[in-house]
């Protein structure tokens, strides 16, 4: 009877976008009279932080401070179509739609600024601080507020843009399965350390350490939030969760948090991560997306670590103490 430690690893890919494509998203941008940019969407924030991340993408695509960007979502009367937040698609598709809309709006912004400064739009750049400057002669500049006022009241122009992104729908060959399912691939590699109590069968996950490659981090703190939350959810899937404890029988299905086991504050391992960025060619600023994948590599890493600790490979989830004890018993008999 002992507490045995083990280490295990797993390496995975995760595809971006609704499988096979055909999932469009649109964005509309308009500037107010004083240079605030409203991005109208019908997209949903599930907690992952979409409303924040889209504002960041919009701000840099427009060339304005992020404080000048408002996100207006979700209302089907005022927001254009969005397929929804799932399939790790939102930052990628909605982000691309916002970039496209921003390009159109920025063009008008620079045209108005150019007229005010009596230069041509190609001579201008934005500093991201609220100013539009003449390249090489930064003392010649105009602010966003003045540009917006001029557009509205002097030139009768609307600083606005329309954006849309869709990966065309792919068919699947029924014989060979040939298909084009996704827009890009993100990757992860997790190393898990566990301690298994051979008397009780309980597994304590000591650490989950992962490398992620996700194209581009728009907001590193929110990316870390996905990694930390996903690591715990992965651990939960691996060791605790089931709606059918006697699967395939439907008996004893849990009805609440007292009997549907998920980790609490005392169960969490040490979580460490490093994020790599190899920009994709299809995402806004190279984004790939991370929302779904963060539970995926911890699960097999933990199962492999258990095997490393006690020499039994459990191939059925969740890896409960009963399964471990039965496996150890069978191993002893061999």
């Amino acid at each position, binding site marked *: 009877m002992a507490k045995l430690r083990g280490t*295990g*690893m797993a*390496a*995975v*890919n995760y*595809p971006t976008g609704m*499988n*096979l494509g*055909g999932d469009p998203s649109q964005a509309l941008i308009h500037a107010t009279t004083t240079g605030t940019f409203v991005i109208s969407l019908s997209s*949903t*924030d599930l*907690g992952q932080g979409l409303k924040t991340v889209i*504002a*960041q993408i919009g*701000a840099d695509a427009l060339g304005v*401070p992020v404080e000048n960007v408002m996100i207006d979502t*979700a*209302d089907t*009367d005022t927001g254009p179509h*969005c397929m*929804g937040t*799932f399939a790790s698609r939102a930052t990628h598709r909605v982000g691309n739609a916002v970039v496209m809309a921003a390009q159109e709006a920025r063009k008008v912004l620079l045209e108005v600024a150019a007229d005010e400064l009596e230069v041509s739009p190609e001579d201008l750049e934005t500093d991201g601080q609220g100013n539009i400057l003449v390249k090489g002669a930064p003392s010649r500049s105009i602010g966003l507020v003045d540009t917006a006022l001029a557009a509205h009241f002097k030139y009768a122009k609307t600083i606005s843009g329309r954006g849309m992104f869709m990966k065309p729908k792919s068919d*699947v060959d*029924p014989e*060979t*399965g*040939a*298909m084009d*399912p996704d827009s890009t*691939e993100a*990757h992860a*590699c997790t*190393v898990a350390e566990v301690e298994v109590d051979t008397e009780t069968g309980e597994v304590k996950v000591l650490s989950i350490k*992962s*490398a992620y*490659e996700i194209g581009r981090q728009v*907001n590193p*703190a929110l990316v870390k939030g996905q990694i930390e939350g996903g690591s715990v*959810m992965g651990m939960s899937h691996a060791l605790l969760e089931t*709606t*059918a404890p006697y*699967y*395939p029988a439907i008996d004893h*299905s849990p009805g*609440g948090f007292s009997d549907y086991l998920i980790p609490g504050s005392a169960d969490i391992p040490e979580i460490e991560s490093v994020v*790599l960025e190899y*920009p*994709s*060619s299809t995402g806004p*600023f190279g984004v790939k997306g991370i929302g*779904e994948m963060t*539970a*995926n590599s911890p699960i*097999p*890493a933990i199962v*492999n670590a258990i095997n490393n600790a006690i020499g039994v*490979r459990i*191939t*059925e989830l*969740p890896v409960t103490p009963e399964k471990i004890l039965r496996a150890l018993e069978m191993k002893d008999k061999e």
Partner: protein
Amino acid sequence: MTQGKLNAVGQSIKRRDGLGHVTGKTVYVDDVKFRDMLHLKMVRSPVPHARIKGIDFSEAEKVPGFVRALTHEDVPKNTYTILCLIGVGPDEEPVLAEDEVRYKGEQIAAIIAETEEAAMEAVGKVKLDLEELPAVFDVEEALKPGAPILKHWGTNYFVYEGHHCRRVRYGDVEKGFAEADFIVEERYQTSPIEHAPTETTGCVVKPEADGRYTVYTNTQALFFTLDNAALILEVPFNKLHLVGGTVGGGFGGKVDVIVEPITILAAMKTGRPVRYVFMRDEEMRVSSTRGAWRMYYKDGVMKDGRIVARQVTTYADAGAYNRHTPYAVTKHAANAAGPYNIPNVSIDAHCVYTNRQPGSAMRGFAVTPASFALEVQMDKIAETIGMDPWEIRFINAYRNGDMKPHRKVVEDATLIETMQAAAEMVGTELPERLKAMHSNDREGGNHG
């Protein structure tokens, strides 16, 4: 790709909704209340498979506060249509059960009442006359002759263009197995899982003075929900106005369009605002899960670590109805061989129906179970041939330019670089040969 200087992208800006969250001022669906709001509770099947012979509402109607009941006869188009919008048919789930129920908890009739307590009391007083039918719960049992059949087209599997499964055929696995030094086989099984967000699924529907309906909902996909609801209710799409965007945890569990159509119908029939929010036990036992997956892997491996053939047979337990599972199985087929370069691959991925609460979308959809099986299998292979687990993955990792089994060229591959970074992070010293590999270089890979 976007150009330009990055000022905001890459910054850890504080959450836009953070202040609302820490002060409790963020508005969720359950915070939306109207003065004359009615409450909807569902009469559900107590058994996994039965024919409905009759429903008796007489005692329920006597409950003080009872307003009305809705059955399938009240639903204009009683077909639950979520996949038709992405071109996947056939439709096979009713909004409210007609003559048969196929899982314990399936919705049969909606009770609308003045208070939640009255609605729940009335639900308890509805008498169901059910003739129980044999039920099947195991995916492989469901495919055997003699199993009770759940679908009107006569099978317990989704038909993929004439096939009983989604197929991937690349190269010749039998030839690969014949050449292989080792054959490594294993069966992997995942369990059905609940999303368990802290906020349950729900909506509040308000009839507006102009004849339209405003639907306050925590759906993850507003237009998807609007379109499906309009088809079910047979109303012009612009009659519906969906408001949402703030979800208390989704994880894929709020894409099923399961509460909105019936609640809108209730609002239409009563002329009053109606609320339908899942109780926690409904969220656990009735709302869709991540279905269980049973996966058989058979790999042909060479002494030097190259996997030369991979055969995968998967059974996705869809539960009683499609929801998103047929589409999931296709996604699974595109990922079941893993981020590895294997010259001979055969995948048979089945979408199988059983008499349990349906599975649907969940975080990692169809790839989570595949990654679990794949990565435990890779360790099993490593152990079988006596190779280090890192090395087996480096040797087989896909590179840019490789061909995936579904005949898409590999792009944006960074599995090797990601593994190198992880090894460095945990202090695992990789052999120089592995440290020198990279995703743009087929040399040093397995088939270059």
